């Protein structure tokens, strides 16, 4: 998280820390057996899905140093079937679900995030909250955060986001495509953003006294840079797949 703050205990209880083959990622609790994350956390560009025993899940922590005393929750991996990103250029359908073998009991440090309701909408300029254990900034250096951080970011209008990506594409042809299954969040002046290691964490919106999962940290061009935005998977587009996957499993 760039430009954010450390999250006090129990403020972001849905946050999940993933460690997959040594790589760090995020996730969010959505039910007592289910974690939602980004597909690219558990499926390599070569199309290989992480085996169950390489996925390590941690919950209920704010400090990664306390990780050793926490239980690891064994889980199975369910990647969206249309996620296909061989050249780092297509993060469409960047969503996956992890099913825990045993249900968890919710408490102050672990609570689920709501899925989007039918009445929930993505209104530009609405402030959202993104969190994670990913890269942060300390002075001029980028370092990996060991404490959970968060930052408030506004939703960006689709056209603004598209213009930003198009502008960047003129300079760098390898920039991934922007699809209707994505949205952007961030500020034009930069300095606040999600970053590497935050992938899979939630971008959440607050409505009527509850937080709901609006997006999944997916990709972006650099982090916190002026004129760039973070790109997030639009969760509301995947409700049918989420429900189907949960019911069938």
């Amino acid at each position, binding site marked *: 998280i760039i430009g954010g703050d450390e999250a*006090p205990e129990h*403020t972001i209880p849905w946050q999940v820390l993933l460690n997959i083959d040594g790589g760090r990622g995020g996730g969010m609790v959505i039910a*007592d057996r289910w974690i939602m994350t980004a597909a690219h956390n558990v499926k390599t560009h070569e199309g290989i899905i992480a085996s169950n025993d390489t996925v390590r899940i941690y919950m209920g922590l704010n400090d990664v140093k306390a990780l050793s005393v926490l239980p690891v929750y064994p889980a199975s991996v369910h990647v969206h079937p249309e996620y296909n990103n061989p050249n780092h250029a297509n993060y469409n359908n960047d969503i996956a679900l992890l099913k825990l073998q045993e249900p968890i009991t*919710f408490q102050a440090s672990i*609570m689920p995030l709501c899925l989007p309701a039918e009445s929930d909408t993505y209104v530009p300029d609405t402030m959202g*909250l993104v969190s994670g254990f990913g890269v942060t900034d300390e002075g001029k250096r980028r370092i990996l955060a060991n404490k959970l951080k*968060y930052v408030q970011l506004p939703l960006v209008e689709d056209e603004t986001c598209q213009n930003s990506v198009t502008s960047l594409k003129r300079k760098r042809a390898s920039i991934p495509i922007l699809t209707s299954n994505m949205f952007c969040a961030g500020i034009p002046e930069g300095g606040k953003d999600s970053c590497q290691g935050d992938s899979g964490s939630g971008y959440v919106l607050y409505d009527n*006294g*509850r937080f*709901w999962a609006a997006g999944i940290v997916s990709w972006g061009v650099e982090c916190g840079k002026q004129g760039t935005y973070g790109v997030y998977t639009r969760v509301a587009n995947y409700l049918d797949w989420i429900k189907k996957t949960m019911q069938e499993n």
Partner: protein
Amino acid sequence: CLQRPSSEPLMHGEVQSPQYPQPYPPNLQEQWDLSVPEGYQIRLTFTHLDIEASPGCYHDALIVLYDGKVVGRFCGSENSADGHHPGHEPIISPDNRFTLIFQSDKNNPERHQNVGFSAQYQAIDVDECSAPDPGDGSGPLCDQICLNTLGSYLCSCHHGYELRSDQRTCLLSCGGGIFDEPEGHLFSPGYPNPPPYAVSCQYIISVESGFTVSLNFSDLFYIESVDTDEGPSCLHHWLEVTIPDKEPMKLCGTKSPGLIDTNSNTVKLDYHTDDEGMSNGWSLDYSTHRVRCPIPDKVAKGRVTPMLTEYFYRDYIFVRCNQGYKLMMDGHEIESFSTMCQHNGQWHLTLPECHIIDCGEPEPLLNGGVTFISGVDNQYLSVVQYHCDEPFYYLLGGLNVSFICEADRQWRSNQDPLLRPTCLPVCGRPTKHLSSFQR
């Protein structure tokens, strides 16, 4: 040449002279021993008789004998002036036997060929009852009534008498024996007249166990008693009433005992008179009643049905518990209970108890709990309330759901009995919120 006796006497038959209807040969001596079953006589009828006639039937003859004595000696022919023809009238034997002997001498007149005889015989029933009193002191064949039957007879007696074992003479009937009908009428021999001679009669009333016998003597009661220093005594005549497990009771005098409840299903009555004195006897109607069982106790939290003022042998009662209670017997629950009044006046089972039912522990609720609101030990009408572990879970369908222990031993909700409480997770509501005061 003798006729071979048959194993079973015939009821009828035919006898003919040798070579009949051809002339019989000379020098004959032939005998037939006729017999019919005992109790019958023989009726012998000649259909034809043509035997050389001679004075006194001296030469040729048919001789009919009974018990070695000559009944008739016949010869000649019908309408002949000489000889002795039997005619058409049958000859009846005194009992069931006859012997016929046909004889011819050596001479036969050449000018006339006699064909002999042909006769038929049949058994006719003897009317033994018409036999006169032999007058030898043995008395008539039957003392009172004689019934003739084919081949025999039967003796019978007038009402109030019974045939003795000699099947001939009659004895004044005691009317005794065993009375096993639920009600009946008994009286002494000849009642209300005195019996002609000493009697010793026994009457046993024995009905099914479970019933008791009541004797109701009629007012006209007279059994001779003897006045002694100690008062009237049933010395020579008496009626002894014996009830099991009780001292026998001798009755006599002129006062009717009236009603006697024996409380027993068997009673023995022995009536005795001697050759002297005068007793007109007694008469009674007996009836039976079912044994009474005690009124059953009340059953707490239950009821006994049917509720009657009295209970008798073979009556059934049932015990049902009030709603929310169960039948318990000897520490075990029973589905239903009934007991029957036995023949000994006792209920065959003791009454059960009614214990309050319980619904058992209410099902635990995952991520929640259950609280007792009222009641004891999960018993009938106890109320529990489910709740979820707030703020992380909430109860599906409502804030709190109360369940009551119903009579069917199920915890049921007054809202939706089919809905099992479920705790759903609360999403998106952290217990602590990010606070940012800096602007």
